[in-house]
C-alpha cells in the first residue's frame, strides 16, 4: 500500500467533506450532503491488510473529526468499525452495488450515532431532527457509494491500494 497516495486521497476527501463543493449536491431544506469519508473507511477496511486497515480507519476518523464540531468521537468509532469491518471481510462480500450501498448505510448509521452520543458526552448540545438528518444522509451516502467506490477502485491502480488476499473478491 502506498501511504502517500492514501494521504492524498484522504486529504482531497476531507477537503470535499469540510468545504463547500459538496453543497452543490445538497438536497432538501436540511441541506443533506453525502459523506465520502464513510465510503473511504469501508473501502480501505475491506481492501487492506489488518495492519493497514487499522491505521487507515483511525486516520479517516481523525479526518472526519476535523470536519465535526468536536475532536475524538469519529476517531474512536471509525477505528473500532474499521477493524470490525476488516475482520468480517471474510463473511461480508461487497460484490454488487446494492451490497456496498447497504454496508455503507449501516456503517454510516452506526458510526454517526455513536459519534453523536460521544459528542453529547463531550458537551455538544443536542440538535433537533438529528436522527432524521442522519437517516437521509446515510441513504444519500449509500446511494452514491457505488460511484465513489468505483472511483476509488480506479484510483487503486495508481495508488496500489488494495492488496488482494486469497479467497476474497474485490470489485
Amino acid at each position, binding site marked *: 500500500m502506498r501511504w502517500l497516495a492514501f494521504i492524498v486521497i484522504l486529504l482531497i476527501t476531507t477537503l470535499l467533506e469540510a*468545504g463547500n463543493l459538496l453543497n452543490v449536491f445538497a438536497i432538501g431544506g*436540511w441541506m443533506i450532503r453525502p459523506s465520502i469519508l464513510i465510503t473511504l473507511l469501508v473501502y480501505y477496511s475491506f481492501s487492506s491488510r489488518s495492519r493497514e486497515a*487499522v491505521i487507515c480507519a483511525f486516520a479517516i476518523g481523525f479526518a472526519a473529526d476535523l470536519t465535526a464540531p468536536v475532536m*475524538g468521537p469519529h*476517531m474512536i468509532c471509525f477505528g473500532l468499525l474499521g477493524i470490525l469491518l476488516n475482520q468480517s471481510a471474510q463473511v461480508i462480500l461487497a460484490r454488487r452495488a446494492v451490497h456496498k450501498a447497504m454496508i455503507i448505510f449501516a456503517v454510516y448509521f452506526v458510526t454517526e450515532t455513536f459519534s453523536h452520543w460521544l459528542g453529547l458526552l463531550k458537551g455538544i448540545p443536542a440538535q433537533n431532527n438529528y436522527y432524521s*438528518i442522519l437517516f437521509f444522509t446515510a441513504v444519500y451516502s449509500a446511494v452514491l457509494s457505488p460511484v465513489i467506490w468505483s472511483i476509488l477502485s480506479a484510483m487503486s491502480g495508481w495508488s496500489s491500494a488494495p492488496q488482494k488476499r486469497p479467497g476474497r473478491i474485490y470489485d
Partner: protein
Amino acid sequence: MAGRNSHLSNASIFFSLFIVSVVVFLWPKSDTAKISMLFQATFQRFLAIGRDAGTPSDRLRPDSKDTFSRSEYTQLWKDYKNVYAQLMAVHDENERLAKLRTGLPQLSAEGLVPAQITGTVGNYSHEVIIDKGSIASIRPGQYVLSEQHDSVVGVVSDVSEAAAKIRLLTDTRQTLEIHIRRDGTDKNIDAMMVGNGDGTCSIPLIEIHQKVLEGDTVYAAAVPGILPAPLVVGEITDVRTDDKEPLLLKITVRLAEDMTRLDHVSVIVVNKTLLIKG
C-alpha cells in the same frame, strides 16, 4: 511501510491508536478545537471553492425596468424595514428623552470586520467557518451580519487566531433575542427566536392573546456592546395555535437572508471607540 514495522503486532497498533483517540476525545475541547480550526485556516482557499459566486451587483440587477428580481425585492425590503426600525427607535428615544437630542448609534465601517465563508462544520449543524479570527478582534458571542450589513445572520460560536465558527440563525441550537413589530404600530413584542434546522426559525412561548400576524417583521434586539441598533432578521410567515400547547402560538419566521447563498459576511466588533453618533 507496514513491513518495516513488523515488530509491532496488529493488536499493539490498534490499542495504541485507540488510546490516542480516547486521549484526544478526553482532552479539553478548547484545545482540540484548535486542530480543526488550524485545518480550516490552512486550507481555507480550497474549502471556499464552490461557494455561491453570485455578486451583490449581479443580484441587484433587475430583469427589466418594470420588474424586480426576488433578491432586489428582498434587498429593498430589508432596507425599508431597517430604516423603519431606526425611525421607531428614534421616535421612542425622543419620547423618553424629551429635550435631549440624541441619535441612535450607528455602526461605522471600522466596527465591522468583513470575512469570507470558507467552509461548513459537519452535515448536521448550520455552522460555517470564516477566514478571520481573534487576530481581527473577533470574539465568541459577536453578531454576524450579511454582506450588505442589513440583517443579522448568525453569532460567532468559536474562535481561533485565523478562523472562527459562525452559528447561523437557522441552527437549532441558536437562539436570538428579537422584537416583533407590525408596520404602522409602535409596539414591540419581545421574544426569543430559535432555528428550526431547515432554513426557517420559530418564535416559541408567545401567548395567543398577543396580536401577531403573518407579515409582521422580526428584528434582532439591540444589545449594548454587541448590536447598537435593532436590525431586521426576517418576516413572520405562519402563525397558528400550537397543537401541544393550545394557549401558545406557533410562529414561523422566514429569514431575510438566504443562508445557503451566503458568501461574505461581516462581524460586528463594535465598541465605544468605534461608534459614531447619528
